[in-house]
Every structure is written in C-alpha cells, then in structure tokens.
C-alpha cells in the first residue's frame, strides 16, 4: 500500500481534510471517509452514473476521479443540493413527477439533471435524453425523469421572470493528476 497523502476538499461548503491512499476513489472518500452515503456506486466502468457529483461546478462521475485529484476542489453531493430544509427544484420535480422508484440511481440522476439545467435552462426532450445518457435507470423507463427535468426547467424559468442577462462565469474543468 502506498503512503497516505493529505487532501483537502470542500464538500457541500465545508472544508474536509484527510490522509488517503492515492488509489482511493472520490466516491469512496465521500461515502466511507466522510460518511456521505447519498452518492452511490452501481458499476465499475463509469457507465451507470449513480455516483455523479458536482466538482468545481461540473458533473463528474466520482468513481472515475481519485480523491487526490479532488484536492483543492469544491464538491457538491446530493446531500448538499438543497438549501436547508428546502428541496432543489430538480428534487422537487423528481418527487412530483414520480421520476424514481428504487431510488438508487436517483442522486446521480438528479445531480446530472441539475448540471444540465445550469448549462441549458430550457432543454428540449431530445437534449434532456442525450444529456442523461450517462446515467442508467432500470426502474422508471426514463419517461418520468424526462418529464421531471422539463418541469424543473419550466419552474426555473418561471422563478427567473426578470429578464436580466447574466454572463455565465467561466467553468472550471477537472484536471487529471492535479
């Protein structure tokens, strides 16, 4: 086993420090080191997307990122998506649209959907389907997930009635071997 190395990651707004094996995956850092078990593992090959979190403002599959690569980053997990007791509009829409059954893919699906709406606040059905093709669901047949993302988009548009154009901040890209 290689020597543990220190990492510092801001998770859901709080700075977390730990010494980790270099091979530790970010998803296991979140789940086992920090106890944030809302992020799930469904495959070994980055196909299913159950482990999707936001890292520096971008959706990543946390089974494909090493904890050491996240050093210095800001990570948001499903536990940090809402504010206080209030649900995020995507969470609200998933509940209202019956967009989940067993719930296992749901945290990743919600994180991927929230990421889509950040980049594209008014996606078409086809854009939603293609944006979510890296997240697998075996229960819902996707129909209600697509509906939920559409309705979250519509709710978001209604909430942002004021037509002020705000330039989007430059998006950070996770770098390998940082």
């Amino acid at each position, binding site marked *: 086993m290689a020597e543990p190395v220190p990492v510092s990651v801001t998770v859901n707004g709080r700075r977390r420090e730990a010494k980790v094996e270099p091979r530790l995956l970010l998803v296991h850092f979140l789940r086992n080191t920090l106890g944030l078990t809302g992020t799930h593992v469904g495959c070994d090959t980055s196909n299913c997307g159950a482990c999707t979190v936001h890292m520096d403002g971008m959706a990543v599959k946390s089974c494909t990122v090493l904890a050491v690569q996240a050093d210095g980053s800001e990570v948001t997990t499903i536990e940090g998506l809402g504010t206080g007791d209030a649900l995020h509009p995507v969470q609200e829409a998933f509940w209202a649209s019956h967009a989940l059954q067993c719930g296992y893919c749901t945290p990743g699906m919600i994180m991927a959907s929230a990421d889509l709406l950040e980049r594209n606040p008014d996606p078409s059905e086809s854009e939603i389907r293609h944006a979510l093709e890296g997240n697998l669901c075996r229960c819902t047949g996707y129909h*209600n997930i697509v509906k939920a993302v559409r309705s979250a988009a519509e709710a978001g548009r209604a909430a942002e009635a004021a037509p002020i154009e705000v330039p989007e901040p430059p998006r950070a890209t996770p770098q390998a071997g940082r």
Partner: protein
Amino acid sequence: MSIVDETRTGGNGFVGQALKRKEDPRLITGRATYVDDMVMAGQLHVAFVRSPEAHARIVSIDASAALERGDVEAVFTGEDMTDMAAPCVFFWKPPGVDVRVPDHWPLARGKVGYVGQCVAAVVGTDKYSVVDAAEQVVVEYEPLPVVVDPEAALEDSSPAVHDEFGTNNVFEWSIGGGDVEAGLAEADVVVERRIVNHRTAGAAIEPRGVLATWQADRLTLYSSTQIPHIARVVLSIQLGISEDRIRVVAPEVGGGFGSKLQVYGEEVFACYAARKLNRPVKWVATRSEDMSTTHHGRDNITYAKLGAKRDGTLTVIDAKVIQDCGSYHLIEGPVIPTFASCVITGCYQIPNVKCDVVGVFTNKFTTDAIRGAGRPEGIHVIETMIDQLAAELDMDPLELRRKNFIPADGFPAALPHGMVYDSGNYQGSLAKLLEHVDVEAFRREQAELRERGVYRGIGFSTYVEICGLAPSRVLGPPVWGLQGGYFESALVRVLPTGSVAAYTGTSPHGQGHETGFAQIVADRLGVTPDQVEIMHGDTAAGPFGKDTYGSRTLAVGGEAIVRATDKVVEKAKRIVAHKLEAAPEDIEVRDGKFSVKGSPDKAMALADIAAEAYIPTDLPEGLEPGLDETAFYDPENFTWPFGAHACVVDVDVETGKVKVVRYVAVDDCGPAINPLLIDGQVHGGIVHTIGQALYEQVVYDAEGQLATGTFVDYALPSAAEIPMFETDRTETPSPVNTLGVKGVGEAGTIGATPAIGNAVIDALRPLGVTFINLPYTPMRVWQAIQEAQGSGGGPRPTEQGRELDEQGRGPGFGPTTPEGGQL
C-alpha cells in the same frame, strides 16, 4: 413532508388518487439507507476468489500468502465449511417429476461448474486490501470439457456437467389438454417456428450486498433482497440455526427485477463467517460480480406449432420448451419455464394444447426469475406465432386475434390445460388501443416513408399474464410442487396516540408499497396516508410473509392489509358503539371520524378510540385491550392481468439498426389504487423489454467465458434510446380479491417483446424478411435483410454457435425427444 393536501382531514377517497410517494423525500435527498451505507463497529470485508474456468476440478488452493497479511482475518475454502447443515435449498419438487438437483455450496467443493463460482473467501479489515489479498490466493485447476449450448448438452455425446447424473437433463415436465394430434390433423395450416428467448440479466443498478452480524447468539442479516422471509427459512436450513434466532432485514433495496428473488451463496457465506469470527461481515458485489453471478433469466428455446382452419379458427398449439438452467440451481430456477406454459395459449380459445418443458444443465451461471419469469417467454411465443400464422393465412393479424379471443362474457374461462382465467375483456383493451393508434393512417404514412427509403413498421401484442402468485393449494407441494405456502400476511396497529403502523409481509424494492398500502389503510380507518406508516422488509417486525415477486404485492399483500384493517375497524366500531351507546352496525367511518349513522356529530376520532383501547377502563364486556390486528390471506386463484400494446419502429436497412419511435400500451390490472405507480411500473417494464429486444444479451463464448461482464458489454438502454410512452388503461375487476386488483409489475415486460418483434417484421416484409429471432440487434437484422435479398451477407446469425435457416430453425429442426433424439 406531506403527500396529501394539508387541508384534508382524512376519510374515504385516497384510493385511486395519483398521490406522490411517501418514500421519495429520503430518496431524493440522499438520506435513504441501502446495505452498503451501513457500517458496524468491527466490521470485516469479504473478497471472493472466483473460478476463471467454466468446468474444472480444483487441484489445490494455497492461501498462505494471503494469511500472512496483517489485514486478513481469515481465508475460507469449501473444505473449511463442512459443518454447514445443508447445501443451497431448492424449493421445487413437482409431484411425479424427477428434478436433478446437484449440491450447491457457498464455496465450491472439489469442482467448479461456471465462471465466477466462489472457490475461496478472504475476510479482512479493509475493503480495498481484501481484494489485494484475494489475488494472492493461488488455485490450481484441472480443466474439464465444457458445454454451453443447451441443445448440444442434451445429446449423448455431450460432456456431463455433473458426473453423478450421467445426463444433462434436469427435468421433463408437461401440461396440456384436448387432443393435440387431432388438432394438428384438423388444421388447414400449421406454422412451425423455433423461437429463442435469449439470456438476459436483471441488472438492478444497486449490486447485491449483505451485512451479517452475530450478536448474543443471534444472527442478523441485512441484505439487498426481495425475500427476507424466505431467506430466513433458507439460512435456518443451511446453517442449522433455528429460525427464531435469525432476523433478516431488507433495508432500502435498489431494484430487484427478480434478480434478488434469491438466496445467494455469498449471503449464506457472510452469515457463516460472522458466526465463526464473531464479527460483522460485509460484502457488496462489484458490477462484474453481479453480472456473472447474479442469476440470469429467460434463455430458452421453444419449438412451437400453431394450427388453424383456413378461416383463422385456431385448432392447436404444441410447444416444447428447452430451458438452459446453467450448472447449478439456486432456490427455484427450473420452475420458471413452467410459468411460460401457463400462458402459452395467450388470450385465445385453443381447444388442443400441449406444452412440454425440458431443463438442461450447461456450464453457465444459473437462470431463475427475471421480471416476468416465464410469462414473457410464453407470450413472446404465442404472439409471435399469431403474426406468423396471420401472414401464412394472408389475414390481418388483429382480425386473427379478435376471431380467437376468449369472449368478454366467457369468464371465468377454464382452459384445456387447466388454467382458469379470472376475468378479462381482450376485445375491450384492443379497441382502446386502436383509439390511440389509427392503423389506416399508419399504413398510408408507412407507404409514403417507404418511397423515401424509410422502413417503418407497426407491431401489436395482446397479452395475458398469470399474477398474484399464490394460491398455496395450486403453487404448493400437491400440484405445482413449490415447497411453501404463497399466502400473505399483514398487521395493522393503531398506536396509543392514534397514529397507525401497518406491516406487510411483502418486501419492496422500488414499487411504492409505503404509498399504495397507506392509501388503502387510510381510507378504511378515516385518516390520511401521511398518518399511516408502512413497515416491511424485516422479519422481526411482524408475522411470516412471502415477500415480493410475481406481481403479488397488491393482489395478495394488499388484500391481507384490507383484512387486517377491517378487523381493526370492527373492533374500533365496538368500542365506539359502547361509548356512544349505539349498535356496532350503526357506526360508520366518515370524514375522518367513526360516527353514528344519521348523527354525524356523535363521533369519535381514531386517536380517541385508541386511548380507550390502550387505557382499558371502560371497554365493552369481554373485549381485549389494544387495537392491533393480524390477517393472513391465501386467495382462491391467481389473477390474470392483460392488455394490448402497439409498437412502431424504424429499421435502418443499411445498418440493421432498429429504433422504437412510438409505443402505446393499454393495460388492465383491475381498479387503480394509485395510477402514478401503475404508469411507472408499465414504463419501466417496457424499457426493460426494449433492452431485451434490441440491446441486451448475456453472452458466453464456446469455452463458457462470460463476454458481457460489465455495463460496457451488456447494454442497458439509456434515456437516449427511448421514446416517450403513451399509456392508457381499462379496468376489469378481478373477482379473486375484494380490491379487484390484479398486479402490474411485470406487464410491460410481458407485452412488449412480441410487439417490437412484430413491428420489425412488419417494417421488413417488403424486403422479404419474414422472421427473426430475438434480440433484434443490428447485425442479426442486417443479416436477415441480406439473406432475404439473396445477397449472401456473410455468416448467418447463430444462436449458441448454431447456424440457423431463414425461419430461425437450427439443424435438424424439430423438437428433441427427452432422450435427446429428433422427433
């Protein structure tokens, strides 16, 4: 977080509403607890050493290097576990049928029969390091001849998967009625096809996982399972621990689809090791472990003959099903194809019926129940054959269906092979489907598109399924031979403050039990669903139950809930009548209160009644304290949901790629308890089957190596491949239970494959393609087009390495005899 309008005070009317689910707040916020989310002080992790050989003798196992590691607690092999009380418990002993059952242990003893079989287990302190240690265990194998093709396995020349039997024949089973020979003789046209239902995986997104603890001489197993109650029985038998000292808990379960209707060796091993080491023991499958050793489904070949008079009147169906069982059984695998035979006549009146089933050992992993479990295969056969026959008769396939449907006034319908369909209206569901699908308009569109080189086709299926698995007297030992009862239990407990906890012996993994059952209980008790907590998935929480599979939760478990609730209501009425000086029969539940008929102001709320029941100072003479009732329910019959599906596909004739562009489903599962949940089940079932029809296949090569061990090779459909669905319902109540419900969890998987397949053929008929077997992958479809066009097209499609002719028939077409010869 409430699921109902806050201003409502409760009372009748929640049943039938599309309420949001009670389960969801924890699931959408990451607060749910699946097995892998649980941590116990001192817990150990397991990594299994698995066989890379499909068939081999184990010569030696050297675990010395692993045992020298400071982070390894123990290494077990099969020889270390000879104090197990019994091998895997197998539940099917049909009367008069000999089923060959090889001993199947959690860790192999002397020999392996499939790739991935557990040979040794390393138990240690760290999740990552046990995997390192398992790689240090050296196993020497002496390879043995391998057989993967079930038809080849039946031949005398085949290697035997199990020496002790001297044959790969697992069992032979038959059902029928009428006179098949006479039916064939009477027919003007007989269509024969070899129909393949290929091997698929359940592929729940949560892999299997277990956490076992041994504390105070008691075993507790937390398992990602559909069947905690059955698991307790199995653990008791295999480990020799009395049932009263075992508790099995199914926490949040991340999907099942039949694949967790099982008690796996890894589960039993974790319990064994926890007891031996006196420490909590945890194991969670990787996806590759899950793909290789979570039971597969389908994988049968049916030789079918369907005969009719020239006017389309069906005279006979004669089917022989060859089921690939893999090398070992788990709890019930070989029974699954017998459920195909139940629905082999579909929605039709066919006077002469025969369905033979033969099971076969091969050097592959076990097949068992996957969503639909036999019924998708049976319906795929009959609905494919109906379209094939219609083409032979030059008849509209919908007209052929209508001509032979069991009429709506023909229920209950006793069929020649012993089935009694409870209720149905097949004409009604097809008519409803055609309100959504304008076939004439489609044909015009299809013709226009063909002129532009777009090959669009439409396919239909009208299905019936056997659901509500119970009744014990049919499924149980004397008739079908499953060694258990198939009732359901429920407990309804009004607590001292008036809140309600209801327990079900069924065990959810995504279906929405907590919401649907709460709606039923709330209506009867005059409260809101928010006030009813549904307990499930814990053998310590209530009476013995029979868990969730076979679309039984509502039809069997729901009726048990009704009966337990009604007992509570009866007792509550006696208390209210006593307090309000009225007769019990004059008390009614209204507007959230138990009130005297005609005097709504003379009423008591449930909380007041609970206070009387639990502070029992003034109860009616002879009435016991408490407000807590149990019910067991075993129905008289199965339920028989049905429906009509239509699928529109586009086939790219240059590449063979099939795309589903429209899907319309009309399903009848009786009255809706919660329409939201029904639609969700239908959508999921259809996509499961679009996957089966177009993308998914578990593939073994000729050496028995699994070629589809990850989600890279085993292609689940993603959102990008799937259209929006159009769903509608008809409601034909079942006379079997008081709710009239039939079950809907498997409907989508049962109706969809033939609708897709018939659509593919409809698209390609102008090119001369008349038949293609599942799955409709680009290569298989493209080759069928090339062959039909006479342009060669490279190697023919094969199944298990066998070349097929244009009718999908293998060499020496015809059913094999039980002895392995040709009929």
